[in-house]
């Protein structure tokens, strides 16, 4: 191995997602509650089958995202290489329009107060945030939530279109599940490769993909380049914005906002080690169905002494190596073998993986009057229920049903095995061996998947304190830095002078607050609370006005 790098990665357990959109809402409140980002959802939850957000983004023949192999088998951007990009820079030929997302709106709330006295109750009518005109709401980020408009809308699902007709017809009755999506923070990011200005980059310490807001010139090629359509164009600032993996939080060891607020506890965060020099090779595998295996081969075993030695040589800190050994992500991908990447065929080597849902199978089985939790029945059903497996395979393994089937069998085995324990029956090792595991391992997996203890599902090494003074927020400013806001000072008043590196401040403030137990000195903090980094513990000063001293 030649170059070991660390990557923060996420796994989502789709069996536990109830589609409550809490992750989307908290993410939006944290990151995209500004003008210009009304339509921007760094995190969104899609109902499958469905069109997704933006509509039909998975259809790369239409949207030209990701990579493809040219005739000589070399990797190239699907939307065209460097020269082509520069020649089409004046008008991007395949950029989604606001209608492909949705036209954001607000309501004329003022009407409710300003309307003259009249017989009918005044109504707050919708008004477009794009044109400012009264509008009719016809689409949104999750318009087809829970299969709403199913017979009309669901058939436009690009995944469904690739499946056979018989399957499509049965589909709606067969199953439905939720797919929460954030930026994949790919190992081979096509958005970064598409950026003409070089403003997008992958952080070498933790693999988070960010947009340098000072370097972005608004050429919009990243929007086309990303096959997951997770880079958005802020139409007010004229800059690209994307999921940041909540880097100000993970730098201090806190989980991302979407993970922290997930009520289903279905998100896992951890470190993976990978060989940066084998990334291109893996992305260039000729057969799309081999991409999943090739991707796994790029990831390294943190318990292998050779890997550890190479990682030390490449400057990965000890606590990161320790975190990599404890990483729930590594366990889910390798030890338990239940996590799969989303759309490996885009060849970007995505780093947010998914445990496919077993529940549609269980439901379908229970509906037929069988015991949906008995191992034998379940195994049979997984093989018989072509529909879910085929659909999941289109999502997670470029259409190869075998890996999906293997994962579902393991999840089924876990269900069955643990049920016997819950019912006080003796452990049945044969269930475990049938899926190539041991009873012990199944119990370990059950602990991680079902109990999902906080410190086991989030193993996040902190950014290094010795680097603390150099930590700077590259991609954002502080939301308090508005005219007259408390964050501002400088020789020429508001917003003048050099910006304060916010992360240094929050890093130390948070560390102090978490470790000392004392509230932060109000004089020092000037009543400023960074809610982004507030972990909900304690009551930071400045959150509420000071109470008047009782005399």
């Amino acid at each position, binding site marked *: 191995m030649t170059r070991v790098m660390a990557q923060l990665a996420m796994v989502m357990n789709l069996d536990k997602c109830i589609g409550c959109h809490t992750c989307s809402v908290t993410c939006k409140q944290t990151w995209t509650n*500004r*003008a*210009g980002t009304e339509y921007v959802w760094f995190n969104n939850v899609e109902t499958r089958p469905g069109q997704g957000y933006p509509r039909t983004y998975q259809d790369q023949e239409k949207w030209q995202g990701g990579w493809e192999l040219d005739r000589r088998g070399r990797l190239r951007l699907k939307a065209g290489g*460097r020269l082509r*990009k*520069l020649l089409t*820079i*004046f*008008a991007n030929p395949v*950029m989604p*329009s*606001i209608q492909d997302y949705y036209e954001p709106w*607000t309501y004329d709330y003022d009407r409710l107060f300003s309307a003259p006295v009249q017989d009918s109750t005044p109504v707050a009518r919708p008004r477009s*945030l*794009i*044109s*400012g*005109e009264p509008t009719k709401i016809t689409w949104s980020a999750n318009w087809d939530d829970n299969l709403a408009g199913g017979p009309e809308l669901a058939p436009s699902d690009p995944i469904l279109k690739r499946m056979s007709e018989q399957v499509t017809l049965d589909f709606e009755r067969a199953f439905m599940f939720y797919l929460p999506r954030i930026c994949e923070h790919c190992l*081979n*990011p096509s958005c*970064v490769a598409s*950026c*003409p*200005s*070089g403003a*997008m*980059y*992958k*952080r*070498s*310490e*933790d693999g988070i993909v960010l947009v340098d*807001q*000072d370097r*972005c*010139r*608004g*050429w*919009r090629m990243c929007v086309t380049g990303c096959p997951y359509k997770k880079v958005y*164009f*802020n*139409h*007010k*600032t*004229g800059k690209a914005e994307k999921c940041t993996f909540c880097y100000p939080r993970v730098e201090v060891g806190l989980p991302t906002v979407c993970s922290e607020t997930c009520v289903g506890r279905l998100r896992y965060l951890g470190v993976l080690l990978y060989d940066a020099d084998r990334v291109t090779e893996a992305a260039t595998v000729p057969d799309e169905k081999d991409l999943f295996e090739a991707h796994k081969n790029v990831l390294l075993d943190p318990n292998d002494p050779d890997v550890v030695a190479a990682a030390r040589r490449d400057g990965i800190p000890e606590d990161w190596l320790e975190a990599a050994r404890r990483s729930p992500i590594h366990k889910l991908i390798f030890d338990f073998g239940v996590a799969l990447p989303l759309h490996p065929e885009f060849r970007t080597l995505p780093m947010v993986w998914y445990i496919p849902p077993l529940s549609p199978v269980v439901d379908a089985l229970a509906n037929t009057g069988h015991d949906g939790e008995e191992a034998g029945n379940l195994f049979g059903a997984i093989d018989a229920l072509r529909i879910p497996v085929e659909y999941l395979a289109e999502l997670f393994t470029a259409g190869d049903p075998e890996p999906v089937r293997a994962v579902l069998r393991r999840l089924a085995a876990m269900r069955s095995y643990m049920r016997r324990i819950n019912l006080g029956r003796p452990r049945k090792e044969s269930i475990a061996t049938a899926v190539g595991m041991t009873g012990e391992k199944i119990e370990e997996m059950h602990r991680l998947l079902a109990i999902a203890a906080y410190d086991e599902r989030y193993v996040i090494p902190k*950014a290094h304190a010795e*680097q603390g003074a*150099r*930590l700077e927020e*590259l991609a*954002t*400013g*502080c939301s308090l*830095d*508005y*005219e007259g806001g408390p964050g*501002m000072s400088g020789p020429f008043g508001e*917003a003048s*002078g050099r*910006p304060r590196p916010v992360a240094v401040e929050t890093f130390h403030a948070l560390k102090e607050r978490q470790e000392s137990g004392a509230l932060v000195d109000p004089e020092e903090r000037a009543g400023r609370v960074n809610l982004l980094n507030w972990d909900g513990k304690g009551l930071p000063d400045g959150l509420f006005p000071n109470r008047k001293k009782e005399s």
Partner: protein
Amino acid sequence: MNALDLILWGIAPYLALTVFVLGHVWRYRYDKFGWTTRSSQLYESRLLRVGSPLFHFGVLMVLLGHVGGLVVPKSWTEAAGVSEEMYHVVAVVLGTVAGVCTLAGLAILIYRRRTVGPVFIATTRNDKLMYAMLALTLVLGLSATVVANVLGGGYDYRTTISPWFRSVFAFQPEISLMAGAPLLFQLHALSALALFAVWPFTRLVHMLTAPIGYLTRPYVVYRSRDLGGERGTRPARRGWEPAGPPRR
């Protein structure tokens, strides 16, 4: 040479160029966050896909033509065996085609800006001023060419305007050369100077960061968290406005 000529052709160019250069330096140091094309493609694509390439490729051709006409001395092209007639025909034909493309593109873009609601709302006063000055410069430039060289008998600007242009950069402005040029050419030069002076404070700055480096850099960029590097020194304000309906 009277005082007006001195001001117009000996002083104004230096003022405009100074503002151009220092303005860009200032803007780059102070407002990197605002340094963008401010694209409106998200709102409207159909007209943009015709107008924008037409305008931009046209204006690039115009730029090349100006370099050829103003920077390259007549003696050089003659030494290369290009006769005045040949040069004249090529320059007039290419220049007119490029000018018409640019103007047509600009007309489409301005029409789009005015008629497409969201695009019009996103248009600032700064943009409107910039569009007016850009259009004025283009119209004057194209009409100078057409009036003098297509309709008229031809005007050899390479013996007057071009030497003056070069003399400005040699800090020995030959004011009398420009003072004797036809009025349309003079107006074109003046409007261009004015455009250069407002350039750094408009969206036109995106031209200076044309991403030529993309052709040679590796596809995937890695950056270290602690690399530091150059950053904008002005805290982000635009884009942190609270959500709400657009201001009219």
